[in-house]
């Protein structure tokens, strides 16, 4: 495992990573809305993962996870309120985070809960989101073109993305892991490299795919339009493994009992809610809502409901503020 990447240890992030790692192999067997949850009290892995940093220092002098101070809103929030609906870009096929429940037809998951909290705060009462289903690759584009107000779609905060859009404070820390077939002995992508001729899938337009191509030339990186597209390829035997955030892989294990998530996280993925770069007041408003949710226990309740398979709800990631717009 890579232990050389430690640059900085965010306390909250480390706790969250530990908690997420705990449940890697114990995702529920099946559950449409993930209610029926196997009490997956998996022992902590013997190898305590490296203390992976969630934040990196960007060229503009800010930490990547650093966002704008919470505030009560401004013109953007007023405009949304006047319009009557919050427009959001989400996933419809990432079980547990944002997926369409085929029984009810509703899109639900941890990401959706966060957005609902924002919508409720804007309008003063629960108000249906106007949902736009997007792929990973569309996330930046829909914000840059102002086609949606917010994007919550397992969206990793990083310096490069800060150049074109803005992010809320971190609301969940995921870690990149690898999913293999139940009978595989591989514990990491390095193991897969050792086996040779292994194909590993990751979705287009994600940090995961980039890292896979750059760091692991020994495996063949296969791109699919969505995470779920990777699961289809995996089930059809067209790839041997999938790499992605543990939050997403947990959803796959829930859909496929012949899949398992192995090894330690080899990167920390701080999730943020994406906002257009010129709508700082909306970012500030969202941050206020997230802080509230982290403090009043609703964040933990959502975590338990959707990601309980990864272990008991950890301490929420600590919001870091003080972003100053770069030179």
């Amino acid at each position: 495992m890579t232990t050389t990447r430690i640059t900085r240890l965010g306390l909250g992030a480390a706790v969250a990573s530990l908690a997420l790692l705990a449940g890697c192999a114990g995702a529920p067997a099946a559950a449409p809305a993930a209610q029926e949850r196997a009490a997956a009290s998996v022992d902590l892995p013997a190898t305590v993962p490296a203390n992976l940093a969630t934040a990196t220092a960007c060229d503009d002098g800010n930490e990547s996870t650093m966002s704008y101070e919470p505030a009560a809103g401004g013109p953007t929030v007023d405009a949304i309120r006047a319009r009557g609906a919050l427009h959001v870009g989400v996933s419809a096929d990432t079980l547990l985070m944002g997926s369409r429940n085929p029984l009810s037809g509703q899109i639900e998951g941890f990401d959706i809960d966060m957005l609902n909290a924002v919508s409720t705060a804007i309008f003063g009462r629960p108000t249906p989101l106007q949902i736009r289903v997007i792929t990973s690759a569309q996330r930046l584009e829909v914000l840059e073109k102002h086609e949606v107000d917010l994007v919550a779609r397992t969206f990793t905060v990083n310096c490069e993305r800060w150049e074109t859009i803005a992010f809320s404070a971190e609301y969940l820390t995921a870690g990149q892991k690898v999913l293999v077939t139940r009978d595989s002995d591989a514990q990491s992508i390095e193991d897969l490299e050792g086996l040779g001729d292994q194909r590993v899938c990751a979705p287009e337009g994600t940090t995961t795919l980039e890292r896979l191509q750059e760091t692991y030339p020994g495996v063949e990186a296969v791109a699919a339009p969505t995470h779920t597209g990777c699961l289809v390829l995996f089930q059809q035997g067209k790839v041997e493994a999938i790499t992605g955030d543990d939050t997403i892989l947990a959803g796959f294990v829930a859909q496929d009992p012949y899949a398992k998530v192995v090894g330690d996280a080899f990167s920390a993925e701080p999730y943020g809610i994406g906002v257009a770069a010129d709508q700082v007041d909306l970012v500030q408003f969202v941050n206020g809502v997230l802080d509230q949710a982290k403090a009043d226990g609703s964040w933990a309740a959502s975590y338990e409901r959707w990601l309980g398979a990864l272990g008991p709800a950890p301490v929420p990631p600590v919001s870091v503020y003080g972003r100053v717009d770069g030179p």
Partner: protein
Amino acid sequence: MTQTIAPHAAPLTAVPTPASAPVHRTGLRGALSRTPGRLRVAGVVSVLAAAAVGVIGLNAGLAQSEALSDADADTTQLVGIQDVRNDLVVADATATNAFLVGGLEPPEQRARYDEAVASAANGLAQLAGSNAADAELLGQATAGLTTYTGLVEQARANNRQGFPVGAAYLDQASSVLRSDVLPQLDELVQANSDRVDASFDSVASVPWLLALGILALAALVVVQVWLARQTHRRLNVGLFWATVLALAASIGGAVVLGSAAAKAGDARNGPYDATVSVSEAYSLANDAKSQESFTLIKRGSGAAYEEQFVLKTDEARELLARPTVDPALAPLLDDWVASHQEIRALDDAGRWDEAVALAISEEPGAPNDLFEAFSTAASTSLEASAEVTHDALSGSGGSSVLVGWLMLVVGVLAAVLSWRGISKRVEEYR
């Protein structure tokens, strides 16, 4: 004519020609120099000319009959392939629409899907048997269909358990259909439509073969004019009747083959054109219906699908506007497209749930009902015009063959008559 060649006048190497001039030359030139010989040659020419009329007639009749039956077979094959294509897009439209409903798909929709797939599979096997030229592409299409149905079942099984991966399987199924099955069928449709066009062209051009008969008739007339000069008699009865028969046979053949060609031409510009247009429009409409479901499944990211919808329905409308097509069909298509606008309006206004409810409603007047009305009318019209085309093509082939053989008989008769006519003149020299 006699000629004496002086030996000294010739070069040394020259072979001296016998000086004696023959009184009776032998060989063809000899025969031609005398009247009975010339008469015999005239007899042969007129016999050949008369027989040629018969042979040309038989060939024309057989060629036209073959072209007609080719056109009929290729039309049937073409309609059959389009039927299969339609079955497949119906199946896909049904599967994607049912997916909007959720895990518990309505039994009627399931039945409609099953029926369409069964009909397509049946059709593919029959088509492969009926024209060997199409077998390879049909084989590829069949393989693609197997993959497609497998993926749909996988989508269904996952959907039934509430797994979102089901949607990804459905997506893949639809793209397999559009990449591995429909293009092959489209290629076959094109190939068969080219073949049908070629057959129609030869049906139309065959009667012109009879124009060769004019040469034969001209030969008969020339022989008679020459004979009249030689014998100072105005008419040779045998040759006269031979000419009349050959002329009558040529005119009769031209009339019958020409009318068969005209009938086929009418079928080509009427019911055949309608069959092909309606079938294509029907296919496009079903394809558009799948796209409609995807605009909703993709929820907000379906702009590309909507573009496809507009493109396909516009194309279908253009086809239905052709003068050969039953004018009742276009308004039915428009009704359905208008109801699609309602779905779009709801979805665009953020009322996705209501849009889906409208899209899957089986109530009278709902989009599904209007689509059903259009597809029933289109199928009925399609079957009717295909039947008319088949009747027009299969009816004329028999008469073309009959006329061909009749012309041969008449040609032989005319040949006999002309030989007898000449023979009488020849006998006068004995």
